[in-house]
C-alpha cells in the first residue's frame, strides 16, 4: 500500500496534525520568549526599576518626602547642634546634647532639637541612645 491510502491506514493524518501543533506551539513560545527578552536584559542591567524593589524605593521616597523640611533660618542652629554632636560619641545620650546646647548658649535649644527629631536627622537607636543620620543631615542642611 502506498500514498494517501497508506497515510490514512497508519493514522498519518493525526500524527501530522499533532506534529504541526507541536511545532507551531513551540514557535509561538519561542516568539513570546524573544519578544520579552528585552525586559529580562533591562532587569539584569537595572533591577531597581522593576517589581517590589521599585515599589519599596517609592515607599522610601514617600516617607522621605513626608518629613518636614528645614527652613533657611532653621538650618544654622541645626548646623550648630551638629557641631556639638561632633564632640560626642556616635551613639550619644540625648539629655547630654540638651545640656551642652543650653551651656553653649544655643538659641532656642529645644525648638532646634525638635526640628532635628522631626526631620529624622537625629534618630533613636535601640539601646536608649541617639544617632546623627549623616546622609539626611547633608541632604537637608548642607
Amino acid at each position: 500500500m502506498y500514498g494517501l491510502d497508506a497515510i490514512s491506514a497508519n493514522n498519518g493524518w493525526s500524527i501530522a496534525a499533532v506534529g504541526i501543533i507541536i511545532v507551531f506551539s513551540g514557535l509561538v513560545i519561542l516568539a513570546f520568549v524573544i519578544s520579552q527578552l528585552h525586559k529580562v536584559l533591562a532587569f539584569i542591567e537595572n533591577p531597581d526599576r522593576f517589581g517590589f524593589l521599585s515599589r519599596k524605593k517609592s515607599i522610601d521616597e514617600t516617607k522621605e518626602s513626608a518629613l518636614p523640611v528645614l527652613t533657611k533660618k532653621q538650618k544654622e542652629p541645626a548646623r550648630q547642634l551638629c557641631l556639638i554632636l561632633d564632640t560626642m560619641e556616635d551613639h550619644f545620650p540625648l539629655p547630654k546634647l540638651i545640656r551642652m546646647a543650653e551651656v553653649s548658649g544655643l538659641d532656642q535649644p529645644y525648638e532646634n532639637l525638635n526640628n532635628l527629631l522631626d526631620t529624622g536627622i537625629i534618630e533613636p537607636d535601640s539601646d536608649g541612645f541617639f544617632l546623627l543620620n549623616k546622609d539626611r543631615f547633608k541632604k537637608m542642611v548642607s
Partner: protein
Amino acid sequence: MGQMTGLLDKADIFKSCDPTIKEKLEKIAEKRVIYEGEDLAIEGQESLFFFLLISGRIMVSTKEGKAAVLQNPGDFAGFELFSTQEKYISNVKSIKEGEAFFINRHKFIEVIQEDPLMAEDFMKECEAYISRTAPFVDRLDGSGVKSIN
C-alpha cells in the same frame, strides 16, 4: 465621652480597662499645659503623678543618659508607677510645649485595685508598652519594683 476617656481608648495600656474605671480615672486626672524644658519628674524625688501625653513631646531619661522620646497622644510616662519606693526612678522632661493629663499615683492605684484581674492586665500592657517604647528599661524584678538599667 470626655477627652481623657477618648485618650484612654487610644492608649494601648488602658485598652483593657473597664469603662467605669476610665470614668473614674477621668475624675482624678488633671489636664495641664507642659512647657518646653519643664521637668515633670526628677529621679529620686517623690513619685506623685504619672503623665498621659495629649500633645507635645516628652523625654524619659535615666541617669546613665539613656532616653526615650514620647510624642504620640496616649503615650505614658511614669514607669515607676508600681515602685514600692514611691520615688521617681527616671527623669521626665517636656521638650516640646503641649498638654498632658497628670494622674495622681496613689489615687490611680486605688482605682485600679478595685478590679485585680484588670490591674494584672494593665501591668502586662504596661510592660509591653515599656518594651516597645523604651526597651532599655528593665522588666519587673522579683520584688515587684520597676527598675531602669
